[in-house]
């Protein structure tokens, strides 16, 4: 069975600080990888995704993530966070074939202080 670990449960940063949220997954085959974001009071929305090709993926609002296959990791980064990035971030993995459902990590709550 696949699993996803997000090591940072709660992160507090000041505006303009750099962000890196860790995500590691456990799965033996080829995977598709996702980061979702949930702003306060809003529904989950896609931030970025990796299916194949360039392991450095760029998403919305200046976020990017790097897929490192050898480390089973898909860490999310942003060079300079803003107060509006305050949200909960979820990493998810889905197998390339087979069960068409995603497995989500437990989430990281990011609080950006002005």
């Amino acid at each position, binding site marked *: 069975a696949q699993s996803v670990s997000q090591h940072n449960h709660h992160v507090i940063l000041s505006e303009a600080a750099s962000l890196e949220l860790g995500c590691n997954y456990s799965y033996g085959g080829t995977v*598709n990888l996702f980061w979702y974001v949930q702003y306060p009071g809003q529904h989950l929305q896609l931030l970025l995704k990796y299916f194949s090709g360039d392991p450095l993926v760029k998403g919305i609002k200046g976020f990017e993530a790097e897929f490192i296959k050898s480390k089973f990791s898909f860490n999310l980064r942003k060079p300079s966070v803003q107060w509006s990035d305050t949200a909960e971030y*979820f990493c998810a993995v889905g197998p390339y074939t087979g069960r068409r459902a995603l497995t*989500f990590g437990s989430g990281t709550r990011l609080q950006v202080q002005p």
Partner: protein
Amino acid sequence: DVKVTQSSRYLVKRTGEKVFLECVQDMDHENMFWYRQDPGLGLRLIYFSYDVKMKEKGDIPEGYSVSREKKERFSLILESASTNQTSMYLCASSFSGVGAGSTDTQYFGPGTRLTVL
């Protein structure tokens, strides 16, 4: 834009009641999903469906059932609600991916916060 709607944002039920949560998507997606979201546990898959009248158990199906009679609609049923089913329930839908893999982007509804007293 993909739109996934859920019948209620907030719901309060009593222990033992039968509860129906409805989800509708307007993008002709083949796949539909029900998750529950609990603090510190992320999203956990309850059931999913990849076609009309087809369903598969997710990771935590106990105490739940589902129905998909039409492609756009996926219902979650709590046969006899219990207090440990108090949670946020999220519905999602996706295409069956072609070419780039079978697990495509999921689009989520706003969620139903269910409280069982």
